[in-house]
């Protein structure tokens, strides 16, 4: 009987290929079939790369036939956020500015996933240059939430999250500057991890906020995310990224350990925050009880300077974005305004017409914040706030091993529902401070919200470079949820898409 490959986790796919149950080409073909069948409704991808995928799959099949040992994610289809360079694909950042830009080198994070055996099936949609929380600012098309295609998937890594949730791929890479992995993971009901800053190389990932950006994986199981983390950090620090650090550990080693006796921090102010919907609050409280039931101790922690996090983020982020996006001037590559009389006109008009509204808004904000006389008031103050928030977190981790909080204050909203940018910025209420502090965070699905019947999620955050501990707690939540639903996976592929195309022969 033919089953869709979307019932299999990345771990099961790799194991099945290694065992000879099916070939990498069959899996790649199934993934491409599923994409063909589901993309009209989901629109998670900006490009699909069948030639790259099939060539990679054939290499794995050849290696297996030759008796070579297969890497841990051999034959696992992977979606890649379109701000990551991969030779053979365009890297557009969902912007007109880079609509035709062909990657001339491959990002370290992508290369490491390929080295681990992943098969690149395509580049995923995103908010333009990762500015946004809904993927609506993509210059090309919106992406739909597989749980309700009338709704947004979250953002900015909305395409990556949706591709996993729709069962088009079991794994995807995203990047997270203020919540861009964790928030869409929450809204799409998948696991999404932002590792500690410096754990994963940023080389080849088009920068938004260099001191905030971090690459991480999406998967439908915690184990798959752990396997992807092994691939991303296992080779040690990247000599091409001066901010990357050597923190290689085996993320699978203690994944199923008991959390008995461990302490889980709860921030009361976060559970009372304005904008947090009752169903998300109830789900996160349920998750706390679940961890407690597994033997963890719940402790209250305070983060006195947390109020400053969003303000600090909207200074540091735009300032760095202004600087990082200055290079897009239409001279060497990217959109070039035709028929300009001189250099100034060409740069100005290329930028005016190449960037979308949100990209321009952030760069203008950044240019203002860094200008003479303004810098001290905002940028310097934001750096001070950053130091205080980091210290707050460090103090909190004296009292607990991880902190549990919502990933997003609410479930997915309808396309066009939020048009005020400042309202959109509040979607990142729970995720931003983690980027400010540089620590790791993981969003874990908690089933469907009682009111909306849409995915709700909890976020676990932990001390710097304790990302393995985070996954151990994430696994505990996943296990608890599976027990509660009597052994079935808590959330798998969104029902409207499960099994639609992608049969394994």
């Amino acid at each position, binding site marked *: 009987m033919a089953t869709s490959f979307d019932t299999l986790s990345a771990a099961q796919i790799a194991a099945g290929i290694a065992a000879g149950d099916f070939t990498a080409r069959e899996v790649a073909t199934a993934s491409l079939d599923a994409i063909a069948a589901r993309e009209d409704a989901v629109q998670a991808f900006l490009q699909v790369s069948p030639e790259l995928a099939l060539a990679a799959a054939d290499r794995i099949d050849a290696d297996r036939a030759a008796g070579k040992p297969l890497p841990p994610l051999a034959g696992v289809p992977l979606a890649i956020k379109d701000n990551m360079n991969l030779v053979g694909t365009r890297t557009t950042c969902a912007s007109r500015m880079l609509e035709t830009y062909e990657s001339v080198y491959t990002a370290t994070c992508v290369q490491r996933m390929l080295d681990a055996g992943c098969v690149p099936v395509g580049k995923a949609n995103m908010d333009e240059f990762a500015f946004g929380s809904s993927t609506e600012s993509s210059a090309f098309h919106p992406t739909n939430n597989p749980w309700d295609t009338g709704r947004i998937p979250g953002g900015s890594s909305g395409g990556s999250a949706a591709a996993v949730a729709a069962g088009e791929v079991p794994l995807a890479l995203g990047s997270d500057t203020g919540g861009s992995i964790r928030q869409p993971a929450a809204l799409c009901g998948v696991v999404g991890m932002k590792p500690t800053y410096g754990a994963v190389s940023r080389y080849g990932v088009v920068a938004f906020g260099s001191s905030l950006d971090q690459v991480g994986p999406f998967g439908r199981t915690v184990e798959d995310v752990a396997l992807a983390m092994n691939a991303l950090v296992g080779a040690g620090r990247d000599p*091409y990224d001066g901010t990357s650090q050597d923190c290689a550990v085996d993320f699978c080693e203690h994944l199923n350990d008991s959390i008995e006796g461990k302490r889980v921090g709860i921030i009361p102010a976060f559970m009372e925050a304005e904008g947090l919907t009752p169903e998300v609050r109830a789900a996160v409280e349920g998750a706390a009880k679940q961890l407690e039931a597994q033997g963890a101790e719940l402790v209250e922690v305070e983060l006195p300077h947390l109020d400053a996090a969003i303000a600090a983020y909207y200074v540091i982020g735009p300032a760095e974005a202004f*600087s990082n996006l200055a290079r897009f001037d239409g001279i060497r590559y990217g959109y070039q305004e035709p028929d300009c009389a001189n250099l100034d006109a060409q740069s100005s008009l290329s930028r005016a017409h190449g960037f979308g509204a949100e990209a321009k808004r952030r760069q203008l904000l950044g240019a203002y914040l860094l200008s003479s006389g303004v810098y*001290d008031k905002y940028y310097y103050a934001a750096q001070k706030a950053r130091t205080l928030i980091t210290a707050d977190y460090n103090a909190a981790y004296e009292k607990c091993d991880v902190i549990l909080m919502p990933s997003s204050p609410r479930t997915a909203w309808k396309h066009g529902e939020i048009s005020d940018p400042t309202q959109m910025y509040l979607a990142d209420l729970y995720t931003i401070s983690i980027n400010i502090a540089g620590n790791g965070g993981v969003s874990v699905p908690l089933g469907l919200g009682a009111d909306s019947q849409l995915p709700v999620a909890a976020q676990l955050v932990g001390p710097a470079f304790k990302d393995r501990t985070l996954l151990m707690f994430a696994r505990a939540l996943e296990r608890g949820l599976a027990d509660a639903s009597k052994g079935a996976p808590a959330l798998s592929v969104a029902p409207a898409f499960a099994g639609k195309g992608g049969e394994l022969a």
Partner: protein
Amino acid sequence: MKELSEVLKDWEAVIGLEIHTELTALDTKMFCNCKLSHEDEPNANVCPVCLGLPGALPVPNKRAIESIVKAGLATNCEIQKRSMFYRKHYFYPDMAKNFQTTQGPVAFCMHGRLDLEVTGRGAAERPDCAFGEAEGLSLASASANAEGLSTAMAQQMREGGETRGGALAGMSGYDTANLALPERHEDGSYTVPIRILRIHMEEDAAKMVHVGGEEGRIAAASESLIDYNRCGTPLIELVTEPDLRTPEEARLFMEKLRRIFLTLGISDCSMEHGSMRCDGNVSLRRRGETKLGTKTELKNLNSFKALHDGLAYEICRQAEVLEEGGIIYQETRHWEPGRKRTVVMRVKETADDYRLFPDPDLAPFDLSDEFIEHCRSEIPELPDAKRDRFEADFGIKRADAEQIAGDPETAAFFEESAAGLSGKPAQAVANLIVNELAAYLKGVEGGIADCGIAPAQVASLAKLLAEDAISSNQAHEVFGLMAESGEDPEKIVDERGMRQVSDAGALQPIVDEVLARCADQAQQYRDGNQKVLGFLVGQCMKASRGQGNPKLFNELLRASLS
């Protein structure tokens, strides 16, 4: 326009230099592994990092940091263990990222100093009124105003980040009291301390070639070509305090710095090819005035002569404008060596806003004591120490010692040639190197190492000179012959019968014969015409077929005629 010497009696010129040096001795660029080369095809040495392609990240070149630390140690700077890179934004195609990675308020090297010994004619440029107490006031008031020195620096000082308090405190508290004031010696020479504000690390921009425009400038160009080979070249920028007062001092400072950098082996320091470039900031104020005038910035000072002459012209130009009641605009001016004038390049109406902020892609540096000591241990003997040693050990003239010690190859050649010598023969070696060898090298390809002349040949020739076995005119001839043939000068002299006769007994009969033959001239000498002696020496030389020692003839003639 008035002469410089006239101008400087009434006006004080306050001069600061900004000196960029490419670290050409390194193999790779500042933030990537691309080859450093001036010779390759355009855009041959580029990669995603130096082209600023999306997603690329910089990784600092450790050897470049070693080089700048050495430069700082050799110029008596304080090495800042903690400093960082900043981004300086401006939109121009020569900088692929539209920002330059440079340093902020704290540079790797801060607060250094070089002492200049100003001798000879150049020492006269500084008028007598610019010494002692008056000069103390001048130095102190110029550096209190040092913020006006450079727009870029001023920008950096206004900007800040977390390091700002400390850096500014250090700068405003900078103390001139412990510095020796210049005093004029009897021979007119003087020594003056020139403070160095900072030496920071940055990356060079790409080279642009504008086609079809006027004099290669962008205005009216039909197209512009960009060569990114140079983009990302490690560059160190040294900024002096405004302590220089004459064009000669500026020239000497540049020369001295160049000698130090050559000795350190961090750059080829070619002003001609632009691997060492100097901008001069100059303003005038009336003698005794403590407020600084408006400065202009001079570019295209691409030789020592251009640096001197450009500043001299600009000082005289400013004096003329001011004396006619005009005002000086803060502007960048271009030295035109052909027309011997400066012309406006651009007027700075408002300070550029470079939006400087710490580069988030580059972690702050935390230099260890070990690293700094390792750099120190690799610094060879510096030119000043070498000059003093040559003067003391070989007994040669200080000016010659200075010149020889300034170039590492020349110094090594001298040491080998003069080994075991001192006094007269050592000075003869020095003379040969400073005059004959230097002139010879101008006419051949390559340097000292491969010019075909061996130290032993120079030593041998120097001995012949010191023993008065040949005249200096003959030495010139022998030098050319030994360079061509590679033979020992002794052999050349002997084979050609060039050896001077310095035996008084052998020469006296010739003197007697000449005096008998030239009785008229002898009488003229006795009547008080000293000049006629030269004619008589010439007659003696002729009679001896050039082999008599002219000095001895001179002495013998005087004795015979007295």
